[in-house]
């Protein structure tokens, strides 16, 4: 008490020199609760009766809707090979469940607002900590436990326990390794595709090879490597996700090259570029044959096919990788190597 008094006297003494303080000179007084205003349902028993009817009707409606959902499940089953049965099934079951829950909610709110007492009251908070004795005793218990168990004295045991608890969750983290291919190096997998020297360019999805003469100026072919269609489905999809290529033919005069070597990757105006966007890997195949723009539908990156697929707009950081192509003896288009850089978006181990 004495301490409090002293504090107060200091405050009073300090008052004239508060300087830049923004404390208002007069304190706000607690305005208290506004006067209680009775609702119509408090005054008129008829209205209260009606509110009651609405609330219990809604609860009964909810029951009906739940039953309806059960019957909808039975009367609108999902038939095999009939997509429209899925529509009816989900629509009516969904409506039933939605109305059963919505009606409970609306009824509960209506009940609370119209019929339950709406008088406001104040619950005062009380201190949550224990008495000083209890708190001192708690500290004592911890100290006793420490002494009796020797937790801080027997350091080998303590460190062993901490180490064991840290090591326990490690297997759960290690198990994530199983999500990556087990027998291959993921880093290597990301850097190489199915294309290799001599593999023919084939049509998606038929897998038929493409002759250079098939590709007229302005044409666009969706291309997969030879042999892809013969893979088991899961492997096929994995390989296709990296090896998909767009093949187009331009007037050779429209193509600009930075080096003779790059020029040799094309065949008489036919160029093949990876279809996997260097931004986040969407398939880039919106090709405009007059402007030679390639647009990625996900984030609007634009690549200019006439300038080695340089990025001309959007978030992609690198040009699309080009597949070096040539023609074999029979006139079919072949790859002369794999892509010379990893296709698709950046990853940790990528050089640039």
């Amino acid at each position, binding site marked *: 008490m004495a301490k409090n008094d002293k504090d107060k006297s200091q405050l009073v003494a300090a008052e004239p020199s508060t300087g830049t303080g923004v404390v208002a000179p007069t304190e706000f007084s607690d305005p208290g609760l506004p006067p209680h205003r009775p*609702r*119509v*349902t408090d005054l008129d028993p008829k209205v209260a009766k009606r509110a009651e009817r609405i609330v219990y009707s809604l609860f009964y409606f909810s029951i009906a809707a739940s039953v309806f959902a059960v019957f909808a499940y039975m009367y609108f089953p999902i038939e095999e090979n009939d*997509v*429209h049965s*899925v*529509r009816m099934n989900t*629509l009516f079951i969904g409506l039933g469940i939605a109305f059963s829950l919505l009606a409970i909610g609306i009824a509960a*709110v209506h009940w609370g*607002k*119209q019929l339950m007492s*709406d008088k406001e009251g104040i619950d005062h908070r009380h201190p949550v900590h224990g008495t000083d004795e209890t708190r001192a005793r708690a500290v004592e218990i911890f100290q006793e436990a420490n002494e009796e168990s020797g937790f801080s004295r027997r350091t080998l045991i303590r460190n062993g326990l901490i180490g064991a608890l840290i090591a326990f969750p490690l297997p759960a983290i290690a198990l994530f390794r199983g999500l990556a291919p087990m027998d291959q190096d993921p880093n290597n997998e990301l850097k190489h595709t199915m294309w290799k020297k001599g593999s023919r360019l084939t*049509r*998606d*999805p038929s897998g038929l090879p493409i*002759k250079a003469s*098939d*590709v*007229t*100026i*302005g*044409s*666009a*072919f*969706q291309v997969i490597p030879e042999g892809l269609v013969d893979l088991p489905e899961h492997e096929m999809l994995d390989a296709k996700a990296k090896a998909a290529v767009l093949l*187009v033919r331009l007037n050779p005069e429209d193509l600009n090259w930075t080096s003779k070597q790059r020029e040799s990757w094309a065949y008489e105006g036919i160029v093949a570029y990876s279809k996997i966007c260097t931004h986040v890997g969407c*398939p880039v*195949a*919106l*090709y*405009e*044959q*007059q*402007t030679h*723009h390639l*647009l990625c*539908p996900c984030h609007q990156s*634009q690549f200019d096919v006439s300038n080695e697929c340089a990025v001309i*707009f959007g978030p992609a950081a690198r040009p699309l990788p080009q597949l070096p192509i040539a023609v074999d003896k029979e006139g079919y288009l072949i790859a002369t190597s794999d892509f010379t850089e990893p296709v698709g978006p950046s990853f940790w181990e990528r050089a640039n």
Partner: protein
Amino acid sequence: MFNKKNSSPAQRRGRRSALASAALIALGLLITGGAYATVSATTANANADLSSPAVITEGQKLFAANCATCHGQQAQGTENGPSLIGVGSAAVDFQVGTGRMPMQMQGPQALAKPVQFTDAQVQALAAYVASLAPGPSIPSATQLKDGNVANGGELFRINCAMCHNVAGAGGALTEGKFAPELKGVTAAHVYEAMLTGPQNMPVFNDLNLTPSDKKDIIAYLNYLEQNPSAGGLELSSLGPVSEGLFLWIFGLGAIVALTVWITAKSN
């Protein structure tokens, strides 16, 4: 048989009644309509006409009057329009038959608008351009029917869906260009577009998508048009844009309305 029934008074009244004249008019309309349908069907199939000198001369006149300003007197092309030598009758039937040509004004791309010529005039123009050099020709009716929907769907998703949307609803391209919606486009125009690659659309020649593949794609588009979406309300099949907008307005709107109702003081 009629004479015999005429003797009954009821029948006589019936023949004089207003219904009888209505029936006569309906019969007359049916006959004229039927005759017109046969005649127009023959003109639509009259691809043989395209080689007749009279039609070509007619087409040349139309070309000189309507197209030569941009495409040149001999269709050799000018600064304002490409050469039409070798584009074939298919390109003309598509561009003029969908109203894209004659072009109204220069812009990112020529827009489809009400067709400016009669069918016969379009045919004549096509005949003239086809006479300049060999090129892709207008498909016959048999090239457009009875395709395989499943194969067409797969080919459509691989070759067309990236621009035209998986439901054929169309989509945006770069710098103001767009791939148009495919609903309501005639089978012949779809076929011609694949064959000739109008404007910025790539060419899908018969070695890339065979005539049978093209037929299948058309069958798939017909299937899409005739079968409503299994998912209910399509919202123009535009995907996340229209669906997101719908949810932002109606989904969030309903939540806001409920919140206002819950927190409002009752009177």
